[in-house]
């Protein structure tokens, strides 16, 4: 998974489709990231924060009982153990350090499930920056706990009432706001989306998941490389970071989308939120509202690199339904004592279906990125239980 060049292209996807007003800001972020990423000092600072603050490396836990039940070897990459409860912290620490290096004093972010918002609020507090987080009104209601966490951490959480009042509208609003304060604020995007260099930069910051998992698999598996590498896909950052560690192997890469917002399975080419990729749309090209029980996956689009990996056949994208996800949450909780985020449970649900349906060969080895923990979803689970 290479450097997408100065135009930020992954095949025909990616690019920088933003208003002229934002072009200098995007170019400045690209330049700063290229320099920082080539700077051993920056990497050292980031790695130190990842280890002493975020709790990396995260564990690789064999799912002992579920593996026995399914007849496969399932290894869980435990991003749920990272500080703030999901992989989002990896990317945010990287971008917040970059923002500091660029002399910015404020972070702007969008959030769906609230995990990226919480991570941004956290990094801002750690580094002495202020944070403004845009969140759809609908998501705010169902992720109340995370909204409160952000505010306790000192961030401003701004409700977005336009459109479908979910992540796609929060993203548009964050971009509109960024235009008004480009000189002092840094836009800290939460996934492998947006204008160049964001899809690439966020993948590089999340690559740590895949690199660690590769080394851990080598110690754990006789064949060193798993047969399958599976991760859930909203915008696609935890999947992109995981895939990056295995891109040059024979492992089959599987991205799992929510059936109600499956950009790759059901979408068409779209230009939205700064890049060209796939998105779910109606017959007239209007972007549709996605629907998933996992707030972090009901985004109608997907990062451009995933569109490319799909087109060239390097990764496969599948969907699971809300019901399968809820069953997967219970199954993982009861067999392993791990309550996964609803987003992460999408990946678990596919592995269960594929193993039980005979799609996974007996004794197949599977690496699954458990992108986050389920605490934030207890209210949703409670509602479903009633």
């Amino acid at each position: 998974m290479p450097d997408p060049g100065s135009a930020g292209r992954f095949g025909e996807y990616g690019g920088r489709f933003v208003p002229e007003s934002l072009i200098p800001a995007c170019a400045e972020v690209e330049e700063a990231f290229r320099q920082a990423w080539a700077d051993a000092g920056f990497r050292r600072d980031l790695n130190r924060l990842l280890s002493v603050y975020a709790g990396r490396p995260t564990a690789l836990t064999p799912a002992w009982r579920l593996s026995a039940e399914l007849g496969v070897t399932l290894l869980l990459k435990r991003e749920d153990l990272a500080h703030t409860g999901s992989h989002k912290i990896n990317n945010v620490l990287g971008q917040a350090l970059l923002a500091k290096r660029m002399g910015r004093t404020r972070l702007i972010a969008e959030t769906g499930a609230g995990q990226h918002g919480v991570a941004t609020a956290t990094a801002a507090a750690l580094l002495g920056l202020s944070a403004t987080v845009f969140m759809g009104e609908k998501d705010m209601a169902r992720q109340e706990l995370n909204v409160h966490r952000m505010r306790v951490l000192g961030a401003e959480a701004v409700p977005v009432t336009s459109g479908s009042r979910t992540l796609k509208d929060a993203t548009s609003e964050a971009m509109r706001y960024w235009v008004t304060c480009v000189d002092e604020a840094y836009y800290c995007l939460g996934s492998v989306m947006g204008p160049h260099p964001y899809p690439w930069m966020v993948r590089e910051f999340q690559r740590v998941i895949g690199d660690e998992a590769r080394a851990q698999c080598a110690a754990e598996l006789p064949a060193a490389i798993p047969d399958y590498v599976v991760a859930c896909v909203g915008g696609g950052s935890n999947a992109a970071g995981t895939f990056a560690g295995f891109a040059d192997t024979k492992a089959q890469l599987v991205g799992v989308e929510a059936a109600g917002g499956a950009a790759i399975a059901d979408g068409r080419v779209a230009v939205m939120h700064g890049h060209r990729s796939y998105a779910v749309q109606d017959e007239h090209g209007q972007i549709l509202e996605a629907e998933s029980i996992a707030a972090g996956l009901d985004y109608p689009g997907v990062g451009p690199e995933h569109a490319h990996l799909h087109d060239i056949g390097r990764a496969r994208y599948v969907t699971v339904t809300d019901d399968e996800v809820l069953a997967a949450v219970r199954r993982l909780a009861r067999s392993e004592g791990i309550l996964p985020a609803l987003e992460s449970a999408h990946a678990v649900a596919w592995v269960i279906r594929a193993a039980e349906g005979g799609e996974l060969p007996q004794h197949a080895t599977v690496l699954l990125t458990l992108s986050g923990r389920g605490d934030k979803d207890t209210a949703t689970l409670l509602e479903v239980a009633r």
Partner: protein
Amino acid sequence: MTATIAGTALGPHLRRRRDAGRKLLAPYLTAGVCENWTDYLRAYADNGADAIEIGLPFSEPVVDGPTVQEASHQALRRGANVRDILAELRRVRLDVPLAAMTYYHLVQRDGLGPFCANLAEAGVRGLIVPDLPLDELGALEHAAEAAEVDLVLVAAPSSTPARLRDIAQRSRGFIYAVSVMAPTGVRAELADTAGQLAARLKQSTDLPVVLGFGIATPDHAVAGARDADGVAVGSALMRAILDGDTPAQVGARVAALRDALDRAYP
């Protein structure tokens, strides 16, 4: 393709009027915002518009502030779509040139060539795509030219001098100068950046420079037109339409803008 061209050409029309000493007025309307939306076009034309910008509504209007967002969503709720909008426009005959303003997603969806040809056939002879910067123009420049649609480029207060030169060179019809680092919307005062950008552009091009974003009142229009060749007015008119003003009432607002410009720049 030339056989299908209808409507008034944008560039020559604006240049002629500008060269005759007139300050240009380009009011904006979100197509499909209400049942009788084309009546507002006639009201604009009859009350002194030099060109009319027609917004083709998109579900993710990242460049637009609350008023135009509301207008876009209202239009979409009513079922507005590009195909039907162009079909309605085909039946409207105005002697003022029309320019579509929309997002790149809708432009590229069915192919750049067909999109531009459909615009021209409906009498729309200009196209403004605010989320398509210079670097990504690619094939649209050629498709627009082939269909005789002027691809109007946008300049911003943050544009570097080198980019302004490129924008001035590659823009057709006019240059849309964004007055402020903000989304569209009514603002109390015209930003300082407005005049500076217009003046910088005027130094490097003979194309008409039209200033837009945040111009709401006759005073703003007069101030904005000082360094520019004219102004675009969007949210202020859309607010009135959303609040129920009739075409005649909105026409009177356009007439007031026209009048202020003509008095200030006789």
